[in-house]
């Protein structure tokens, strides 16, 4: 089987897995990184949202060979490391607002929220309700009200 190397949460990893296996399963089933969740496998529910080179993406829809040796993959486990702290400000905001109910979608929600806020900041503006309306991550517990509060609160500390 071919070897695939990439940067995962700040460290270089090499996995021995067939081409074509989507990155979500390389993370979850081969590397045991279980923060990104399966919710649909077709880039719809967004429960597996992680970052590639600082941008949000869904590893359920990326074959492993499309990730290069220098590509930086960040999962929820590596998010605090991007700010050199125990917790990222968005995670702090999530705890403070007591957002999670069952919690299953929340790693993906937080990774999406960080990307949405970073994008707005890069455009020199605050995150708006219109931005929040475009987030596609689904929460079947219906925690959206607190998610919206937490994204804005987290943004204030990013």
């Amino acid at each position, binding site marked *: 089987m071919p070897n695939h190397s990439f940067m995962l949460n700040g460290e270089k990893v090499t996995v021995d897995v067939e081409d074509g296996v989507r990155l979500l399963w390389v993370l979850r089933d081969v590397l045991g990184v279980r923060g990104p969740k399966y919710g649909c496998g077709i*880039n719809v529910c967004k429960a597996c949202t992680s970052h590639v080179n600082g941008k*949000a993406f869904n590893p*359920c829809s990326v074959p492993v060979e499309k990730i290069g040796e220098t590509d930086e993959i960040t999962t929820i486990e590596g998010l605090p490391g991007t700010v050199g702290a125990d917790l990222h400000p968005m995670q702090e905001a999530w705890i403070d607002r007591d957002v*999670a109910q*069952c919690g299953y979608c929340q790693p993906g929600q937080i990774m999406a929220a960080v990307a949405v806020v970073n994008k707005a900041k890069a455009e020199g503006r605050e995150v708006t309700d219109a931005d929040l309306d475009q987030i596609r991550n689904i929460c079947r*517990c219906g925690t959206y009200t607190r998610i919206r509060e937490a994204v804005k609160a987290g943004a204030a500390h990013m």
Partner: protein
Amino acid sequence: MRTVPGGRAADPGRRRFLGFLVAAPTLAAAAELGLGGSTPAYAALPSGPQPPEIYDLNDMLTDAARATSNLITVVINTDGTASFELPRSENGQGITTSTAMLIAEELDLPVDRVKVTLAPARPELVFNQLTGGSNTTVSTFTPIRVAAAIAKGALLDAAALELGDTVANLTTKAGVVEAPGGRTVSYGDLAAKAAVSSPRRVEVELTTKRDYTVIGTPQNRLDARAAVTGAKQYTLDLDVPDAKPTMICRAPTLNGKPKAIRNRAAVEAMPGITDVALVPTGVAVRGETFGQCIDAVRALDVSWIDGTVAGQSDATVLKALRAAEVPLVVPKLGPLVKTVDADFTFWFRSNSSLEPNCAIADVRKDGAEVWGACKSPITAAEEIATMLGMAPTAVKFHVMEGGGSFGRKLFYDAAVEAAQCSKAIGKPVRLMWHRTDDSRVGRTHPMATTRIRASYAAGEVLTYEQRHTSVKTDFGHGLGEIITALAGKLPVGDIGFSQTIFALTQEVPYNFGATNQLLNEVDLGFNTSSMRNIYSPDVAAARELVVDQLAKKLGKDPYRFRREFTKSERARAVLDKVAQAGSWGRSMAPGTAQGIALHKEYKGVNAVLVEIDCRPGTVNRTVRDGVTGPRVTKVVMAVDVGLAINPRGLEAQMQGGIMDGLANMLTSSLHLQDGAFLEGSWDNYFYTREWNVPPVVEVHIMPSDSEEPGGAGEFGVASTGAAVVCAFARATGTMPTSFPLQHTKPLAFTPKTRIPPVPESPTDGLDHTY
């Protein structure tokens, strides 16, 4: 700091409870899980009130839980923490946190030093390990506190010896006992000293409401940090040795069965695949990664036997329901009495949670172990044992925390299948349903019609009649057994399982004269279960729409009409709260409107005021692969659940229920076509998404004198949905009769294939980064 009489200075006005000190290496105190509450006897059903007013579903579940004489145990550990195995299922409703609060309250220990885990299936608990009906806190409130209070008394006895003083002179604070003069000893140091070597019966009093310092205060969830760091462990995150990813290739019609595999060797040779096996519900594939299992499921060539609803569609099911409808009995009462007649249809809905159906199973010759989130683990273990031909004691069921339930995890379809797969393959399996299967094959909230006739004259409502006709709801998860066991006690006579649930939950909260609600069901072979409540969201939406019609006929404002006709002061208080906080009656633009609704259940009452925007600019918003439609712009809810253990958790449950209420009435349903459901993704099944979320959501928790908690988990759904449809009717001038509104519009998605049964995994993820 709190002075503790240790429950010893007997107060004649206070109730005393019995429990046990249990022989264990460290202090373990126990209470009977069936303890608590009063048990009124009902000889006959008075003619005035409806059954839920005297004995509701919660009473039934609490009574069922009372019957067992088995123990739940609070343990004090040498590190100063307390631990407790909760015989219930946590799926996000927050019961591990509220349970820790109850124990912390009695023990005078910080909440974060109480470790609550979920108990495995304990067959000796009989009816006492079923999670449902928003009943967990109602039925466990007293016994958990009794066990903790007994532990506290034993700690104080041991501390008195240790510190050379009397119990009455000791105080406790945050897990430390202090004697006058400042000498202290910690619970951790007392844990072994307070242990007993033989069991002992103990009497205890509980902390009263006026002394609560934890109960009633807002607490964040104890698992919040684990949830946001990805550390929280769900079934699919568990590493059981050799339990490799396993998926099932399913039939093109609902509940179809496999006949033969035509290309077994080719699929066995696919990358990563270790096993292919015929199982009752399809063809199982086991492999190194779930991704490779998906590829194998898609590659399988299988011949199938048609399923239980082959050839059926929405229209044929509706026809069957119409044929089963029983007539309304109130005749037209003459020229002075007028009637409102209404007829509503509620289409199938999916109770999929975000965590798909999944379970781990390791079936060996002499026994089996199963891991999964399950609200009825005793029944699950028994059914798996029967299926495997083993004694019930040979199956160990580990209850995992679930990624959402909404009624889905009352059943254990994946656990049974995982055991079948493990048996067929002869190896441990980690079974996961594809989302498409979870949506199409997983359990549904049954389709139903509701007909209402209300008559009125001279400013009064004289009769209210409601006939609910539904596809059969499956209660084969243990609740049926509870009903059988308690049959003689229920105030509803011998009317069968579903009718019993219906009669014990449905209540018209208004003085509408002769009131009568009935359920009739038809069994059409669907996989059904409750969905964040059973009948109430549909029954209440129909009822509140008719209430608005009655108000209009009698020339009254919808809020004032409800206020005037409701039977209860608590109902009047929540109505007043939302009317005031939501500025009822404010001037609104054409195409927008307010709606108001009231609902009583779970020993509580809530009212909701919503504002809806049905203007073309809003309705016609476009979102890729999404449904927009009317937008609810504001929701104001007031809820009275009696004693709110954790107001922060209660608010969260209400907020979630609000999103379900919107989805039920506006967007989310399943379309049945030619023997199968079409929806196979979250972009087909339109549960509330960010673009549907009301920008303003307010939940007001009413102050209450009650010393007893009521139910919470499902309570926000019915009243919200009802308020939404009432607002829609007022904004558009047309009373809707088919729900969700989206269902009868042109299909908003292209259905995925039935063969292969699951879609291909995309490869273009890097084209959609942001």
